[in-house]
């Protein structure tokens, strides 16, 4: 529009004075990397996410050094416990089997319709998480007893809680409970049975169960000295994030799981983006028939239904005994994911090839290495970097998803995905088992997403100037 109003005057064609209007450079020119960094630094959330990622890497790499707990060590006395700083436990004797308690058989009565509840229900001390032993007085006419356990005082006959087991004769009047006991109060109920049906009456006893540990266990774990005796109290190991379904330390498992999850999350995208860049770059650079043939292969691989093939490849590669299954997952991921990067890079290279400055360089006789090094690479690096940052969270998700359907890493190798999946089953009763791994996955995914956003904005000059 302005052109049409422009009416040149003769003075316009005079040469300018050189000195006064020349540019003065007051700061050293910024390299591309420096400029990007400057713009990136202004993006607060991107900076925070960069910090988060560094922290996560530190957690993964230096974690085992700060928290040198064996992630495979099981403590069956502390299964699925919430965070503790070390419980105090009672030392008990190494358990020998208890064959219950047998009374002289009382005379059987013919009337067995309304059998009374047993009397004299008592607990044999000590009641610890190792075992709780019950005994009671025999009931005349009983053919057996059923034992129940509840965490609350039972309200009625239908509310006795867990059916632990039963004894099969009227004079078998003892029962040992070892079924995953926690250090809390329990209400044990005993019901008389006539051999077919259980009677309506029941006897209840409340027991405060103490955390227990056998002397042998305490010794082998180095919790006590040689002079420790039964009945002493010892402090158990701390579990700052609680324990899992086999009593393993969750913090240690998260640290070690991070290695698997981040390894897959970082290595797979790095590999497939690299592969894709080389492939796509070559195709774009060569152009013509070769390009078309190469892109046809990409079309094929992209057409494969991703998840279906991920599963299929993973089992086809097979996981040998003792292997963690990380490698097959990595290979499958790389094999199926590289084409999208290849497409992206090829498109960029094609576009660059037609840019005037590249054409100019070529006309001036620049060779391929120079063109790639000084024109292609710097210009597509940003795109590749952004592609990479967004590929990382999706790789982490895929690992988690495969673990969810039981095709992830093989136990006992922990990964955030598998920990999450295990925690899902227990999310109501032991929420900490889901909360911590889910938090870590979410934080990582989020951090990489925000970092990607920040990078993209910082690399994209147009957008940053616009906002």
């Amino acid at each position, binding site marked *: 529009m302005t052109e049409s109003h422009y009416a040149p005057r003769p003075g316009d064609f005079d040469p300018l004075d050189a000195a006064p209007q020349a540019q003065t450079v007051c700061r050293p020119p910024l390299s591309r990397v420096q400029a990007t960094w400057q713009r990136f630094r202004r993006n607060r959330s991107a900076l925070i996410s960069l910090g988060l990622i560094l922290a996560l890497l530190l957690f993964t790499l230096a974690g085992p050094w700060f928290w040198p707990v064996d992630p495979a060590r099981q403590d069956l006395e502390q299964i699925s416990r919430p965070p503790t700083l070390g419980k105090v436990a009672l030392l008990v004797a190494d358990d020998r089997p208890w064959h219950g308690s047998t009374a002289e058989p009382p005379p059987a009565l013919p009337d067995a319709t309304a059998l009374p509840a047993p009397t004299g229900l008592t607990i044999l001390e000590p009641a610890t998480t190792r075992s709780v032993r019950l005994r009671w007085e025999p009931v005349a006419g009983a053919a057996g007893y059923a034992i129940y356990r509840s965490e609350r005082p039972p309200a009625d006959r239908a509310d006795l809680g867990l059916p632990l087991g039963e004894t099969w004769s009227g004079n078998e009047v003892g029962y040992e409970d070892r079924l995953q006991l926690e250090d809390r109060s329990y209400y044990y109920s005993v019901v008389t049975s006539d051999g077919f049906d259980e009677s309506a009456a029941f006897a209840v006893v409340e027991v405060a169960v103490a955390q227990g540990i056998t002397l042998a266990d305490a010794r082998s774990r180095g919790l006590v000295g040689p002079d420790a005796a039964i009945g002493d109290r010892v402090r158990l190991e701390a579990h700052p994030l609680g324990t899992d379904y086999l009593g393993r330390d969750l913090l240690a498992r998260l640290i070690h799981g991070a290695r698997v999850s981040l390894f897959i999350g970082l290595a797979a995208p790095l590999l497939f983006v690299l592969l894709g860049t080389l492939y796509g770059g070559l195709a774009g650079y060569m152009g013509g028939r070769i390009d078309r043939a190469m892109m*046809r292969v990409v*079309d*094929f691989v992209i*057409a*494969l*239904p*991703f*998840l*279906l*093939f991920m*599963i*299929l*490849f993973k*089992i*086809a590669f*097979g996981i040998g005994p003792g292997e963690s299954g990380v490698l097959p997952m990595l290979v499958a991921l790389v094999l199926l994911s590289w084409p999208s990067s290849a497409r992206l890079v090829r498109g960029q290279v*094609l576009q660059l090839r037609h840019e005037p400055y590249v054409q100019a360089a070529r006309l001036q006789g620049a060779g391929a290495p120079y063109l790639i090094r000084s024109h292609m690479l710097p210009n597509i690096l940003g795109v590749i970097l952004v592609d990479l940052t967004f590929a990382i*969270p999706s790789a982490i*998700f895929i690992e*988690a*998803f495969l673990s*969810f*359907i039981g095709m992830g890493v093989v136990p006992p190798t922990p990964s955030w*995905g598998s920990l*999450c*999946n295990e925690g*899902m089953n227990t*999310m*109501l009763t032991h929420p900490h088992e*889901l909360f911590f791994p*889910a938090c870590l*996955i*979410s*934080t990582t*995914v*989020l951090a990489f*997403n925000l970092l990607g956003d920040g990078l993209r904005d910082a690399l994209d000059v147009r*957008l940053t100037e*616009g*906002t």
Partner: protein
Amino acid sequence: MLKFMLQRLVSGLVTVWFIATATFLAMHAVPGDPLLNDKAVPPEIRRNLEARYGLDQPLPQQYLLYMGNMLQGDFGISFTQQNRRVNDIIRAHFPVSALLGVAAILIAAAGGILWGALAALYRNRLPDRLIMLLVVLGISVPGFVFAALAQLLLVNVNRWLGFTLLPVAGWGTPAHLVMPALVLGLGLLAFLTRLMRSSMLEVISADYIRTARAKGLSPLRIFFRHQLRNAILPVITVLGPAIAAITTGGFVVELVFAIPGLGRYFVQAVQQLDYTVIMGTTVFYGAFLVLMVILVDILYGIVDPRIRERGHD
């Protein structure tokens, strides 16, 4: 144009053949075979079984036989459900996955466009921050966690209300669709919201908007006629691949909500190494995706001639 369409179709068919061959090879590379079962069978029974399924033939023969049948549109008979044809299984279960997927995409697209636009309009103010917080959750929480939490929420809501507001699981009525579709669409919704927001921001600062504003157009008109219409374009471009991802990605939702979709069948078939079902499902999905891509290409070609030309180079 006709030549372009034909070209795409031929390359699509070659792609389907490639998928079928890749699946066949991958599947037969898996150790074991579908005839093994918990209780071992005597060798004579095993021979009878092998003969029934043609597994006594050498592998190349099996491949040729399979390809021949597939050309006639016959995917064979399932190994685990021995009287059901794989075609019947696909016909019965794919519509379920597709319906779920379409519902999820509708929810995601509508929600994503609306929220994204809203967030952009209220940039850096409360609505924007709230929406972006939800987006952050949607992007960073794994789908299976969402699915489990959503189901739990429903149970508690239903119990609290004393009647069934929405069914907890199962399939059959539109009410059954709501929660699974919502959960399935959530990730995509978050992604689209983000995309829409940044695309909208770009549009807002574009010259033609300034011009429109300067012309004195009403803000509502500007929003609908200029901003939304232009900002929506990148969202539509990513919808194509999203359809593919979501129809195959419904596994988790199908598992948790007891929905008889094809995804759940596939996971089961892999466990059981049900050759014919694995082949049928993969080839079918592959063909479906290829068809979608071709359709999108042709559609683009019609809408925008530039793309058609680029497709040739």
